[in-house]
Protein backbone atom coordinates (compact mmCIF):
# COMPACT_ATOMS: atom_id res chain seq x y z
CA UNK A 1 0.00 0.00 0.00
CA UNK A 2 1.27 3.49 -0.83
CA UNK A 3 2.34 5.67 2.09
CA UNK A 4 0.42 8.74 0.93
CA UNK A 5 -3.04 8.63 -0.54
CA UNK A 6 -4.01 11.84 -2.26
CA UNK A 7 -7.67 12.71 -2.15
CA UNK A 8 -9.60 14.39 -4.93
CA UNK A 9 -12.15 17.08 -4.09
CA UNK A 10 -15.13 14.79 -4.62
CA UNK A 11 -13.48 11.95 -2.70
CA UNK A 12 -12.83 14.23 0.26
CA UNK A 13 -16.45 15.43 0.18
CA UNK A 14 -17.63 11.83 0.15
CA UNK A 15 -15.43 10.83 3.08
CA UNK A 16 -16.67 13.80 5.13
CA UNK A 17 -20.29 13.03 4.24
CA UNK A 18 -19.87 9.39 5.27
CA UNK A 19 -18.42 10.57 8.59
CA UNK A 20 -21.31 13.01 8.99
CA UNK A 21 -24.00 10.41 8.24
CA UNK A 22 -22.49 7.77 10.50
CA UNK A 23 -24.45 4.51 10.49
CA UNK A 24 -26.87 5.72 7.80
CA UNK A 25 -24.27 6.17 5.07
CA UNK A 26 -25.60 4.43 1.99
CA UNK A 27 -26.15 5.63 -1.59
CA UNK A 28 -29.43 7.58 -1.23
CA UNK A 29 -28.65 9.74 1.83
CA UNK A 30 -25.08 10.18 0.61
CA UNK A 31 -26.16 11.58 -2.75
CA UNK A 32 -28.94 13.69 -1.18
CA UNK A 33 -26.53 15.20 1.35
CA UNK A 34 -23.96 15.91 -1.34
CA UNK A 35 -26.62 17.49 -3.58
CA UNK A 36 -27.76 19.73 -0.69
CA UNK A 37 -24.21 20.78 0.16
CA UNK A 38 -23.15 21.41 -3.43
CA UNK A 39 -26.44 23.00 -4.43
CA UNK A 40 -26.94 20.84 -7.49
CA UNK A 41 -28.08 17.34 -8.37
CA UNK A 42 -25.51 14.55 -8.01
CA UNK A 43 -25.22 11.50 -10.24
CA UNK A 44 -25.52 8.41 -8.06
CA UNK A 45 -23.38 6.55 -10.60
CA UNK A 46 -20.55 9.04 -10.01
CA UNK A 47 -20.99 8.63 -6.26
CA UNK A 48 -20.59 4.86 -6.55
CA UNK A 49 -17.59 5.20 -8.90
CA UNK A 50 -15.87 7.40 -6.30
CA UNK A 51 -16.88 5.04 -3.49
CA UNK A 52 -15.35 2.17 -5.43
CA UNK A 53 -12.07 4.10 -5.80
CA UNK A 54 -12.04 4.90 -2.08
CA UNK A 55 -12.69 1.26 -1.25
CA UNK A 56 -9.80 0.15 -3.48
CA UNK A 57 -7.54 2.62 -1.69
CA UNK A 58 -8.65 1.12 1.62
CA UNK A 59 -10.11 4.40 2.88
CA UNK A 60 -13.64 3.05 3.30
CA UNK A 61 -15.24 -0.32 3.81
CA UNK A 62 -18.73 -1.48 2.97
CA UNK A 63 -21.27 -4.02 4.15
CA UNK A 64 -24.69 -5.10 2.98
CA UNK A 65 -27.79 -4.14 4.94
CA UNK A 66 -31.42 -5.15 4.74
CA UNK A 67 -33.40 -5.23 1.53
CA UNK A 68 -36.66 -3.30 1.37
CA UNK A 69 -39.70 -3.53 -0.97
CA UNK A 70 -39.25 0.03 -2.30
CA UNK A 71 -35.76 -0.96 -3.42
CA UNK A 72 -37.14 -3.88 -5.41
CA UNK A 73 -35.80 -6.31 -2.82
CA UNK A 74 -32.22 -5.10 -3.21
CA UNK A 75 -30.01 -4.65 -0.19
CA UNK A 76 -28.56 -1.31 0.86
CA UNK A 77 -24.77 -1.07 0.91
CA UNK A 78 -23.52 0.84 3.92
CA UNK A 79 -20.15 2.58 3.92
CA UNK A 80 -17.81 3.28 6.79
CA UNK A 81 -14.54 5.22 6.91
CA UNK A 82 -11.55 3.07 7.89
CA UNK A 83 -8.72 4.14 10.21
CA UNK A 84 -6.58 4.80 7.16
CA UNK A 85 -9.40 6.91 5.70
CA UNK A 86 -9.59 8.98 8.89
CA UNK A 87 -5.84 9.49 8.82
CA UNK A 88 -6.02 10.60 5.21
CA UNK A 89 -8.85 13.07 5.95
CA UNK A 90 -6.91 14.56 8.86
CA UNK A 91 -3.73 14.91 6.78
CA UNK A 92 -5.69 16.61 4.00
CA UNK A 93 -7.32 18.97 6.53
CA UNK A 94 -3.91 19.94 7.93
CA UNK A 95 -2.52 20.67 4.48
CA UNK A 96 -5.61 22.63 3.40
CA UNK A 97 -5.64 24.61 6.66
CA UNK A 98 -2.00 25.59 6.18
CA UNK A 99 -2.71 26.62 2.61
CA UNK A 100 -5.75 28.72 3.61
CA UNK A 101 -3.80 30.37 6.42
CA UNK A 102 -1.04 31.32 4.01
CA UNK A 103 -3.55 33.31 1.93
CA UNK A 104 -4.87 36.77 2.85
CA UNK A 105 -8.46 36.76 4.15
CA UNK A 106 -11.16 38.17 1.82
CA UNK A 107 -11.50 41.30 4.05
CA UNK A 108 -7.77 42.05 3.77
CA UNK A 109 -7.94 41.50 0.05
CA UNK A 110 -10.77 44.06 -0.31
CA UNK A 111 -8.95 46.60 1.85
Amino acid at each position, binding site marked *: MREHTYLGEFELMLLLTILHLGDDA*YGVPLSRELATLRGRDVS*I*GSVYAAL*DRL*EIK*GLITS*SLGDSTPERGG*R*AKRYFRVTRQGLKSVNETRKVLSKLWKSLPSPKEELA
Partner: protein
Amino acid sequence: MKQAKSVALASWLLKHFTFGPHREALTGDLSEELQSGRSPSWYWRQVLSAIAVGVLRRSRDYLLALLFSLAWSMFYPAWRLCLSRIRLPHILPQPWGSIDLPYSTGLHGIAEMIPATVFVWLGLFLYLFLRSQQISGLSAVRLLASLSISLNTLFIATAGIWLLLKPSQIGPGELNPESLQSNSYLVAICIPLALGLFSAIASALPLSHRRNSAPLPG
Protein backbone atom coordinates in the same frame (compact mmCIF):
# COMPACT_ATOMS: atom_id res chain seq x y z
CA MET B 1 -48.35 1.58 -14.09
CA LYS B 2 -47.56 4.23 -16.68
CA GLN B 3 -44.44 5.21 -14.72
CA ALA B 4 -43.30 1.60 -14.49
CA LYS B 5 -43.56 1.26 -18.27
CA SER B 6 -41.64 4.47 -18.93
CA VAL B 7 -38.67 3.38 -16.81
CA ALA B 8 -38.68 -0.31 -17.78
CA LEU B 9 -36.22 0.27 -20.62
CA ALA B 10 -34.00 2.39 -18.38
CA SER B 11 -33.98 -0.40 -15.78
CA TRP B 12 -33.06 -2.91 -18.45
CA LEU B 13 -30.20 -0.70 -19.63
CA LEU B 14 -29.05 -0.26 -16.04
CA LYS B 15 -28.99 -4.01 -15.52
CA HIS B 16 -27.10 -4.82 -18.70
CA PHE B 17 -24.78 -1.86 -19.21
CA THR B 18 -23.44 -1.05 -15.78
CA PHE B 19 -20.50 -2.85 -14.19
CA GLY B 20 -18.80 -3.01 -10.87
CA PRO B 21 -19.38 -4.35 -7.41
CA HIS B 22 -22.01 -1.78 -6.47
CA ARG B 23 -24.42 -2.36 -9.34
CA GLU B 24 -27.09 -3.98 -7.18
CA ALA B 25 -26.86 -1.23 -4.58
CA LEU B 26 -27.01 1.43 -7.30
CA THR B 27 -30.11 -0.17 -8.83
CA GLY B 28 -31.73 -0.38 -5.40
CA ASP B 29 -30.92 3.27 -4.65
CA LEU B 30 -32.42 4.45 -7.92
CA SER B 31 -35.57 2.36 -7.30
CA GLU B 32 -35.84 3.81 -3.80
CA GLU B 33 -35.55 7.37 -5.15
CA LEU B 34 -38.14 6.65 -7.83
CA GLN B 35 -40.55 5.24 -5.24
CA SER B 36 -40.03 8.30 -3.06
CA GLY B 37 -41.33 10.58 -5.82
CA ARG B 38 -38.52 11.25 -8.27
CA SER B 39 -39.64 11.71 -11.88
CA PRO B 40 -39.03 9.18 -14.65
CA SER B 41 -36.88 11.77 -16.45
CA TRP B 42 -34.66 12.05 -13.35
CA TYR B 43 -34.42 8.24 -13.31
CA TRP B 44 -33.43 8.19 -16.99
CA ARG B 45 -30.77 10.86 -16.45
CA GLN B 46 -29.31 8.91 -13.54
CA VAL B 47 -29.26 5.65 -15.51
CA LEU B 48 -27.58 7.21 -18.54
CA SER B 49 -25.06 8.95 -16.31
CA ALA B 50 -24.28 5.70 -14.45
CA ILE B 51 -23.76 3.88 -17.76
CA ALA B 52 -21.49 6.64 -19.07
CA VAL B 53 -19.42 6.68 -15.87
CA GLY B 54 -19.07 2.88 -15.92
CA VAL B 55 -18.11 2.73 -19.60
CA LEU B 56 -15.55 5.52 -19.16
CA ARG B 57 -13.96 3.77 -16.18
CA ARG B 58 -13.75 0.45 -17.94
CA SER B 59 -12.52 1.90 -21.20
CA ARG B 60 -9.74 3.68 -19.30
CA ASP B 61 -8.62 0.32 -17.89
CA TYR B 62 -8.77 -1.32 -21.30
CA LEU B 63 -7.09 1.60 -23.06
CA LEU B 64 -4.10 1.31 -20.76
CA ALA B 65 -3.94 -2.44 -21.43
CA LEU B 66 -4.18 -1.85 -25.17
CA LEU B 67 -1.41 0.77 -25.17
CA PHE B 68 0.80 -1.51 -23.09
CA SER B 69 0.13 -4.43 -25.48
CA LEU B 70 1.05 -2.34 -28.51
CA ALA B 71 4.19 -1.00 -26.85
CA TRP B 72 5.27 -4.46 -25.65
CA SER B 73 4.77 -6.03 -29.08
CA MET B 74 7.29 -3.53 -30.51
CA PHE B 75 10.02 -5.26 -28.51
CA TYR B 76 9.43 -8.58 -30.24
CA PRO B 77 12.19 -8.17 -32.85
CA ALA B 78 14.67 -7.54 -30.00
CA TRP B 79 13.36 -10.64 -28.21
CA ARG B 80 13.84 -12.78 -31.33
CA LEU B 81 17.32 -11.41 -31.87
CA CYS B 82 18.20 -12.28 -28.27
CA LEU B 83 16.90 -15.81 -28.81
CA SER B 84 18.84 -16.17 -32.06
CA ARG B 85 22.03 -15.10 -30.24
CA ILE B 86 21.65 -17.99 -27.81
CA ARG B 87 20.95 -20.27 -30.81
CA LEU B 88 17.75 -21.66 -29.33
CA PRO B 89 15.99 -21.99 -32.71
CA HIS B 90 18.85 -24.19 -33.97
CA ILE B 91 18.50 -26.54 -31.06
CA LEU B 92 14.73 -26.94 -31.23
CA PRO B 93 13.94 -27.86 -34.85
CA GLN B 94 16.85 -30.29 -35.39
CA PRO B 95 15.10 -33.50 -34.30
CA TRP B 96 12.11 -32.50 -36.46
CA GLY B 97 14.14 -32.00 -39.60
CA SER B 98 13.84 -35.62 -40.62
CA ILE B 99 10.03 -35.71 -40.26
CA ASP B 100 8.10 -35.82 -43.55
CA LEU B 101 5.58 -33.30 -44.80
CA PRO B 102 3.02 -32.15 -43.73
CA TYR B 103 4.04 -32.88 -40.12
CA SER B 104 7.39 -31.08 -40.44
CA THR B 105 5.55 -27.88 -41.46
CA GLY B 106 3.22 -28.13 -38.48
CA LEU B 107 6.08 -28.74 -36.08
CA HIS B 108 8.04 -25.89 -37.61
CA GLY B 109 5.01 -23.64 -37.05
CA ILE B 110 4.75 -24.76 -33.43
CA ALA B 111 8.46 -24.11 -32.92
CA GLU B 112 8.00 -20.61 -34.32
CA MET B 113 4.95 -19.94 -32.14
CA ILE B 114 6.73 -20.88 -28.90
CA PRO B 115 8.93 -17.72 -28.70
CA ALA B 116 5.91 -15.56 -29.59
CA THR B 117 3.78 -17.21 -26.89
CA VAL B 118 6.50 -16.90 -24.26
CA PHE B 119 6.92 -13.25 -25.23
CA VAL B 120 3.18 -12.57 -24.81
CA TRP B 121 3.06 -14.35 -21.47
CA LEU B 122 6.10 -12.39 -20.24
CA GLY B 123 4.24 -9.22 -21.21
CA LEU B 124 1.19 -10.36 -19.24
CA PHE B 125 3.24 -11.08 -16.11
CA LEU B 126 5.03 -7.74 -16.42
CA TYR B 127 1.69 -5.88 -16.73
CA LEU B 128 0.25 -7.72 -13.73
CA PHE B 129 3.39 -6.90 -11.75
CA LEU B 130 3.30 -3.22 -12.71
CA ARG B 131 -0.43 -2.94 -11.91
CA SER B 132 -0.38 -5.14 -8.81
CA GLN B 133 -1.57 -2.18 -6.70
CA GLN B 134 -4.74 -1.88 -8.77
CA ILE B 135 -5.37 -5.51 -9.67
CA SER B 136 -6.04 -7.81 -6.78
CA GLY B 137 -7.67 -11.16 -6.24
CA LEU B 138 -6.41 -12.77 -9.46
CA SER B 139 -7.01 -16.48 -9.00
CA ALA B 140 -4.86 -19.23 -10.50
CA VAL B 141 -7.84 -20.41 -12.56
CA ARG B 142 -8.37 -16.93 -14.05
CA LEU B 143 -4.64 -16.65 -14.78
CA LEU B 144 -4.60 -20.03 -16.52
CA ALA B 145 -7.70 -19.05 -18.49
CA SER B 146 -6.09 -15.78 -19.61
CA LEU B 147 -2.92 -17.62 -20.67
CA SER B 148 -5.03 -20.02 -22.68
CA ILE B 149 -7.10 -17.20 -24.24
CA SER B 150 -3.93 -15.35 -25.24
CA LEU B 151 -2.55 -18.47 -26.90
CA ASN B 152 -5.75 -18.98 -28.89
CA THR B 153 -5.95 -15.32 -29.88
CA LEU B 154 -2.31 -15.30 -30.93
CA PHE B 155 -2.80 -18.41 -33.03
CA ILE B 156 -5.99 -17.16 -34.72
CA ALA B 157 -4.57 -13.67 -35.33
CA THR B 158 -1.34 -15.11 -36.72
CA ALA B 159 -3.29 -17.42 -39.02
CA GLY B 160 -5.45 -14.48 -40.15
CA ILE B 161 -2.45 -12.25 -40.83
CA TRP B 162 -0.67 -15.09 -42.61
CA LEU B 163 -3.66 -15.64 -44.88
CA LEU B 164 -3.88 -11.92 -45.63
CA LEU B 165 -0.16 -11.47 -46.30
CA LYS B 166 0.57 -14.93 -47.67
CA PRO B 167 2.49 -13.77 -50.75
CA SER B 168 5.08 -11.98 -48.67
CA GLN B 169 5.37 -14.92 -46.25
CA ILE B 170 5.66 -12.89 -43.12
CA GLY B 171 4.52 -13.54 -39.62
CA PRO B 172 5.83 -13.76 -36.07
CA GLY B 173 7.93 -16.77 -36.97
CA GLU B 174 9.99 -15.38 -39.83
CA LEU B 175 12.67 -12.93 -38.86
CA ASN B 176 15.72 -11.67 -40.65
CA PRO B 177 17.57 -8.33 -40.73
CA GLU B 178 15.94 -7.32 -44.05
CA SER B 179 12.43 -8.04 -42.81
CA LEU B 180 12.99 -5.88 -39.73
CA GLN B 181 13.32 -2.83 -41.96
CA SER B 182 9.91 -3.45 -43.49
CA ASN B 183 6.94 -1.59 -42.00
CA SER B 184 4.55 -4.29 -43.16
CA TYR B 185 6.61 -6.84 -41.26
CA LEU B 186 6.35 -4.83 -38.05
CA VAL B 187 2.59 -4.46 -38.53
CA ALA B 188 2.25 -8.16 -39.26
CA ILE B 189 4.06 -9.22 -36.11
CA CYS B 190 2.67 -6.48 -33.89
CA ILE B 191 -1.01 -7.15 -34.55
CA PRO B 192 -1.14 -10.82 -33.45
CA LEU B 193 1.18 -10.22 -30.50
CA ALA B 194 -0.66 -7.11 -29.32
CA LEU B 195 -4.03 -8.85 -29.72
CA GLY B 196 -2.77 -11.91 -27.86
CA LEU B 197 -1.44 -9.84 -24.98
CA PHE B 198 -4.48 -7.56 -24.86
CA SER B 199 -6.85 -10.54 -24.72
CA ALA B 200 -4.76 -12.01 -21.89
CA ILE B 201 -4.81 -8.80 -19.87
CA ALA B 202 -8.51 -8.16 -20.54
CA SER B 203 -9.43 -11.65 -19.36
CA ALA B 204 -7.12 -11.37 -16.35
CA LEU B 205 -8.62 -8.05 -15.25
CA PRO B 206 -11.15 -8.85 -12.56
CA LEU B 207 -14.72 -7.62 -13.06
CA SER B 208 -14.29 -5.55 -9.94
CA HIS B 209 -11.10 -4.23 -8.42
CA ARG B 210 -12.50 -4.32 -4.93
CA ARG B 211 -10.51 -4.83 -1.81
CA ASN B 212 -11.28 -4.48 1.83
CA SER B 213 -14.96 -5.33 1.48
CA ALA B 214 -16.45 -6.26 4.78
CA PRO B 215 -18.16 -9.62 5.17
CA LEU B 216 -21.91 -9.69 5.07
CA PRO B 217 -23.47 -9.06 8.44
CA GLY B 218 -25.07 -11.99 10.17
